[in-house]
């Protein structure tokens, strides 16, 4: 069904595209909401991705790749949104990364606010990989396909993303891997 809808959308059938967008919308919102940590921003990113999908759908050579392509548009929109937001002078409460070792296990330690702050300290690229892996449940190969990066880079981003979270939560002083992209 999806295949047919994509082909119809490629021929300019807006109702077919509406059906595709409606089917994907809530999942896209949930992913964007988790990457950007903000409902309004997520809504904007999803809208940007869907507008671009409609505009560019004729360029999609393999209709069967529609879902992966839509994911790619969405994470690109999230990345762009995060970079635009970075232009605004915002200040997050700083985290002490040298605090004493917590005595309980990590699940007890990691209250939501700290996780939120630690997660927001990651670059949007690392956040995206963590969300696609731990929330969507995609394997590294598919994440690499969506992001246009090799699976090895996905693996290293997952590895360093987790280490950065642990460091920010005070479990260890290990090297985190994430510097926000400096807009190069």
């Amino acid at each position, binding site marked *: 069904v999806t295949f047919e809808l994509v082909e119809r959308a490629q021929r300019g059938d*807006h109702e077919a595209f509406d059906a595709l*967008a409606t089917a994907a*919308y809530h999942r896209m*919102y*949930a992913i964007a*909401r*988790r990457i950007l940590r903000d*409902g309004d921003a997520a*809504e904007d990113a*999803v*809208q940007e991705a*869907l*507008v*671009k999908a*409609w*505009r*560019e*759908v*004729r*360029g*999609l*050579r393999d209709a069967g*790749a529609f879902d992966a*392509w839509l994911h*790619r548009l969405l994470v690109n*929109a999230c990345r762009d949104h995060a970079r635009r937001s*970075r*232009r*605004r002078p915002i200040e*997050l409460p700083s985290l002490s*990364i*040298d605090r004493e070792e917590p005595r309980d296990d*990590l699940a007890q330690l*990691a209250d*939501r606010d700290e*996780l939120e702050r630690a997660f927001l*300290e990651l*670059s949007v690229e690392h956040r995206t990989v*963590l969300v696609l892996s*731990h*929330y969507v449940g995609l394997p590294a190969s598919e994440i690499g396909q969506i992001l246009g990066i*090799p*699976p*090895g*880079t996905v*693996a*290293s981003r997952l*590895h*360093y993303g*987790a280490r950065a*979270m642990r*460091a920010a939560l005070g*479990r260890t*002083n290990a*090297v*985190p*891997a*994430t*510097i926000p992209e*400096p807009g190069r």
Partner: protein
Amino acid sequence: MNESMDQVLADWLHEGPESGPREGLERSLAATRRIGQRPGWTLPERWIPMELAMARTRVQRPMLAIVMLVLLTAAVVAAALFVGARPQQPPLPFRNGVIALAKDGDIFVADRPGGDLRPLVAGPGNDQSPMFSPDGTRLAFVRDDGQGSFLMVADADGTNAVQIPLEPFLDTSLWSFAPDGRSLMTVAQIDGAKRVVIRPVDPAAALTVLDIRLPASWMYIEDPRFHPTNPQEILVVAQLVPDGPRGLYVYDLATGAIRTIVEPADGFTPYVDDVAWLPDGEHIIYSLGGDPHVVAADGSGDQALDALKDRISPLSNDGTRIVVDVGVADVPGDDSHQRSVVVPIDGEGGRVELACGLGMKIECAWSWIWSPDDSMLIGTVPHETSSTYLQADPDTGRVTELDWVDVGTPAWQRAP
């Protein structure tokens, strides 16, 4: 420990809303109805095979060839007269070298934009992201061997490649070359603090860790930058006093002296980012809260440069021009409503509009690089399934499509 962290992350990420607001969906659908689809004729790979779409057919037509030759001769004469009548540009310090590209897991070079690709590095694994050192003598690239990515540095001809130990580097993309290509600089976390680290390319040489306090949060870390000609000076965003302002400073590697370039007032402190030296080494550009500025290297003469907003290229090599996007998208996400324009960085003088974008046959690039002699631009146009490339003349605005497909981000060597 990793499994535990992964589980905490997975549980936490599964909290929260699984669906968006209904009105959000309606707004999105309404937005798509306000725009048209990109015309099919701009997507030749969609309706004819890529090989045919990208290939240029040679047709044997003697009369046409003669006419073309006459027209070409006339054009050359006219161009020579035009160029001769223009004021002479000051000579640039750089000449064009080869262009490095990544394709099918190997590194290639071409002598000119769109030119034939010659293999340069064809090692095991997937090689990508080539970058030349500022003096053109070294080439860095990222190698993925299936287990992970790591950084390689070779001579510019592809020989003598060495693997750079990743520790304490954080990522294979977050570093910069020294002017002579003999060392790399990055920011690492050491003993709980962020530190500027310089790693010689020679694996046997020792790391240098600089004694300068950086912001505590990765969110405010900027890549430090070597002075373009003086390897003893680096430009760095630092926070010299805990909870103090995050400013822009020049650090002298020989003496440890710190020179203040910009130090915003304490309290409300906007971002200092996008920092770079101008090629003359006498000026610095940076953004403060998103507003671009230029300042002399001694910290004097700071001025805002509105012309640099929305820039999509690095500075030209003579430090006078940049490509920016102008125009406002009236529909979020519809980036067709824009034009790329070459502007003088001080906003004075003429602007050259590139012949691509809205209303043009050629879609504009998302990013551009300058040739070392500043006579050409190469643009990358990412599509969802491939990337294509453009060549632009920054003096006339003429844009042509290149025959390259999916060659990554090109890196243009300054001829040593």
